[in-house]
């Protein structure tokens, strides 16, 4: 029985990078979905939600095609760096970002929408720009939603399989994540190693989610206390 620590740390790295990027990309996107009055907003919402219902292999396939040397994006990247995006760590990050997008954006948008519009109006009346209103009012009152989105993205990326397999293949140290490693071990009938890796992923994911939801509950309680008495 061996634990493939290389695969484990690669997976953690992937999850950290993807969650961090989705935090930066997801906040403005979530803000737009929560507050925009565009008529075609529902289209964006539908596209963002797509990865929830789409089989990861379908998403992975299109990402692979888009990143490959036959697509304009792939050719442009190749002319820039000399190699294709497919079967690289960067390619894996791009695929995972698309795959985990709704898990970040939806909790963000939901918690932004829940902020009392009167607080936003009051902020503007006191001379604050939309950006200042976001950082001083919207974000502090949405902490729990933002933390939830971040944690879901992290956990979701930790455990993804289909997209990784399609986009990244199975290159040790570059694209072989825990879930791929488990698949490999089972294929090779190394059930003890597969079990060790599976257990590791299970415990780690559970630990992350427990810590996050535990912290979040305290925050949430504080907010409810305030909200109910302020009326």
């Amino acid at each position, binding site marked *: 029985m061996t634990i493939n620590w290389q695969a484990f740390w690669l997976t953690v790295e992937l999850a950290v990078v993807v969650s961090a990027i989705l935090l930066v990309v997801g906040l403005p996107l979530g803000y737009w979905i929560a507050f925009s009055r565009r008529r075609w907003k529902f289209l964006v919402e539908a596209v963002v939600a797509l990865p929830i219902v789409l089989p990861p292999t379908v998403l992975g396939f299109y990402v692979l095609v888009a990143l490959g040397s036959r697509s304009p994006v792939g050719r442009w990247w190749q002319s820039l760096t000399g190699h294709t995006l497919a079967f690289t760590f960067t390619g894996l990050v791009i695929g995972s970002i698309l795959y985990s997008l709704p898990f970040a954006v939806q909790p963000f948008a939901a918690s932004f929408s829940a902020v009392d519009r009167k607080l936003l109006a009051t902020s503007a*009346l*006191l001379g604050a720009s939309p950006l200042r209103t976001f950082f001083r009012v919207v974000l502090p009152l949405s902490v729990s939603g933002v933390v939830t989105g971040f944690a879901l993205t992290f956990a979701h990326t930790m455990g993804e399989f289909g997209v990784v397999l399609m986009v990244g293949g199975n290159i040790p140290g570059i694209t072989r994540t825990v879930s791929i490693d488990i698949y490999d071990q089972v294929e090779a009938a190394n059930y003890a190693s597969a079990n060790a890796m599976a257990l590791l992923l299970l415990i780690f994911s559970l630990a992350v989610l427990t810590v996050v939801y535990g912290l979040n509950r305290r925050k949430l309680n504080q907010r409810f206390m*305030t909200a109910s008495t*302020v009326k």
Partner: protein
Amino acid sequence: MRSNSNSKNTNASLNARIQKKLLGGECDFTLDVEFNASPGFTILFGPSGSGKTTLLDCVAGLTVPQGRIGVGERILFDSRTKTDVPVRLRSIGYVLQDLALFPHLTVEQNVEYGLAHLPRRERKDRSLARLREFRIDHLREQRPSQISGGERQRVALARSLVTNPCVLLLDEPLSALDAVTKAKIIDDLRRWNSDHQVPILYVTHSREEVIALGERVLVLENGRIIAHGVPHEVLTAPLQESIAELAGFENIFEASVWLVHEDRGTMTCRLPPKEAGSFVLLETPLIRAETGTLLRVGIRAGDILLAISKPEGLSARNVLPGRIISVERRDVVVFATVDCGVEMQVQMTLAARDELKLKEGQQVWLVIKTYSCHLMRK
């Protein structure tokens, strides 16, 4: 165009011509007003649903109307020239009805919120001065959830006033407060206003507040200004009060105007109107009505005193003899029904009932102050 100038025209009056259609619900509602508010209090008075809050929202820029809104020379909004100064550049102080204090910030951070453009030192000084003025400087570190309703009202006022707005909008800022706290805050506001002469639009549906503030009143009904002037002139006009406002009155009687005492500011009403047989005469506040006009009189059960012997030497103008029909306990209060020509409900405490030893058929006297009689047009 000076719409974007940052100069704050103090002493400039607010002039507005606003039309706003609100769709939805069972009936469409149209706000259609034109007014000029010079520095000092202008009271917007009217029943709920008359368009008071919509009017404030239009002035603040939270709702887009048709028409023109300006402060002195500065144009805030003009639908013809498509001028619409953004909310944050209008420098209008607006205390919303539910205050909208930032729950995650302390009192001091709330008050400093509108001063972000100032250096830290000046920000602290200015907010502290305002907090002292409103006697809430000891609450600096508290959160809105940790302080009382009256204190929250003061924080909301301080937060708006600290930015030196060129117009102040107050939407029923004192509705939830007891009379003493209310009077103190009105004093604070007056003091502030004597230093900063800006137009203050003060929304209320309470006659008491209108009289206490005692300045210009605009009476709004169904989206239109139906009367304007000083409280004494305006409030003597009978108002169409909504069913909701009648709800607070346990005693509502049909009545007719019997005598008008213009010189004393009162009149006498006959209950019930016209019909033959016994009737009761009540002294009530004066309204603009002629003898014989049909009215409704509302009296709260808690505003009536009950005496078991004939009281004398009272300032109250109405002392009605009658007999107890029933005494009924509801929770911790007691309601006595008394027949004094008309049946009246009187509210008292359990202790009062026990001490007076009230029983059915007993002779009693009811004492009702003139201003406890609320008149409504039929």
